[in-house]
């Protein structure tokens, strides 16, 4: 039997088990809080009650598993500290997630729509959309996501420029954070934090190192660390043991397949040697 030709579906089935078991029976593996996450936490912690926080919410189904729990963790922290929240998006799906934040977190905590939280509609144009809102916030959003004119929303009236924003959070799998660094942080010095998917480290690491980003949440691990800091365990923390086991499984697959590969190669080399004699 050649194990290298095993039906790949067996490995898929094992993977499901490897992920499922720790979700049912958490093992409590250690979690180190990384500095960029602590920095983000400290920033939110330092803002006074009533500060206006702008969340650029580019959560979509593709990055939901990673960015959504990050954003939730930080919004919970904002709500606990009494910060007022404005949500904007440059992806079409974003406002639908922002709407969930209003319904599921803000309003149950006693937030009043229009006064403490505002959900703004999606704006196309990527970086140009960010430039536009940075240059003329009220002009860019004449109405909110639900069609209410901004003039009727007290919170919108307070934001004259990006200087009125105490902090920007960018939640994305792509370049969104870079646009805010270039268009908002660089021009108005608004403290900016970013939550990105795990593969995004290469993209954002340099900006975190240079101080242009005040904090960085990386993948589910970033969310889990933040949840630990705010002492509100959520989906991010629940996932960490499963992450460990999944990683271990993949490493084992690589190692084991190579052991069998070399064994097979030695055998065929030996067989060829015999044939030559």
């Amino acid at each position, binding site marked *: 039997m050649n194990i290298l030709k095993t039906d790949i*579906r067996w490995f*898929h089935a094992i993977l499901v088990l490897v*992920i*499922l078991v720790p*979700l*049912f029976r958490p093992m409590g593996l250690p979690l180190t809080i990384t500095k960029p996450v602590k920095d983000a936490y400290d920033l939110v912690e330092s803002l006074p009650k009533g500060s206006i926080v702008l969340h650029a919410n580019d959560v979509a189904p593709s990055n*939901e*598993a*990673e960015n959504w729990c990050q954003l939730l963790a930080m919004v919970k922290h904002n709500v606990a500290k009494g910060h007022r929240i404005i949500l904007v998006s440059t992806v*079409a799906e974003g406002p639908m997630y922002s709407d969930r934040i209003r319904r599921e977190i803000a309003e149950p905590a006693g937030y009043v729509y229009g006064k403490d939280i505002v959900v703004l509609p999606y704006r*196309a144009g990527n*970086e140009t959309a960010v430039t536009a809102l940075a240059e003329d916030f009220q002009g860019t959003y004449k109405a909110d996501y639900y069609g209410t004119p901004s003039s009727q929303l007290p919170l919108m009236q307070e934001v004259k420029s990006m200087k009125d924003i105490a902090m920007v959070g960018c939640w994305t799998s792509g370049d969104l954070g870079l646009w805010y660094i270039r268009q908002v942080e660089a021009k108005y010095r608004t403290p900016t934090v970013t939550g990105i*998917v*795990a*593969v995004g*480290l*290469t993209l954002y690491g*340099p900006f975190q190192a240079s101080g242009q980003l005040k904090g960085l949440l990386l*993948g*589910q*691990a970033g969310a889990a660390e933040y949840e630990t800091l705010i002492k509100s365990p959520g*989906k991010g923390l*629940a*996932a960490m043991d*499963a*992450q460990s086991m*999944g*990683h271990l499984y*993949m490493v084992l697959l690589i190692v084991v397949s190579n052991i069998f590969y070399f064994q097979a190669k030695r055998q065929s080399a030996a067989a060829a040697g015999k044939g030559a004699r």
Partner: protein
Amino acid sequence: MDIKTLGTWVAAISTLSVYSYLYKENALFRAVEYILVGLTTAHLTVMGYQNVYDVAINPVMTGTKVLMIVPIILGLLLYTRWSKHYSWVSRIPVSFMLTVAAAVTITGNIDANFMRQVRATMVPIKNLDTLVVVVGTITTLMYFFFMKIRGGSRAEGNGGPLAAVIAGGAELGRWVMMIAFGATFGSGVMSRIGLFIGRVQFLFGDWLKLIK
């Protein structure tokens, strides 16, 4: 059954149909595949229409920005594609879309991905890390020298000292890239497992209520 429960069931069945492909391509999967293509196309079109309405049609109708008639006309010209005689007219908007995308690519790349990257590499060499960055970047770039000077030196041994340096650099660059690829592959695993955990949490939490 209330609407929320119905929704969860629809979502759960859709999720499982997709995973069924991992076992075998089957009728349930096929149904979901075709539905998804239809649904996405419709969704994009609805969103596109609303965007066009807000940004162009409405301002033209109310007279606040009559200039927006230009993209509307260009957009409508696209549909001449469906006519036999006038289909060449659709090349006007197509050419417009492509060249503007090209121009935006240039402005987006020339500074951020070329000049700034070059400048970011000019760091003082203080430790091993900075040495790796500088040497690694330069040698990786050497891997992308396409002119024959490089091939000449290695294959035929007739390239002279410059070609030998470039060939050596390119070889080193390949090693650096391989480390980068491995590390990136590794960090990708976390995202991918994360996505799957998200679905598992939905199936066993929101749907079956077996995990909290």
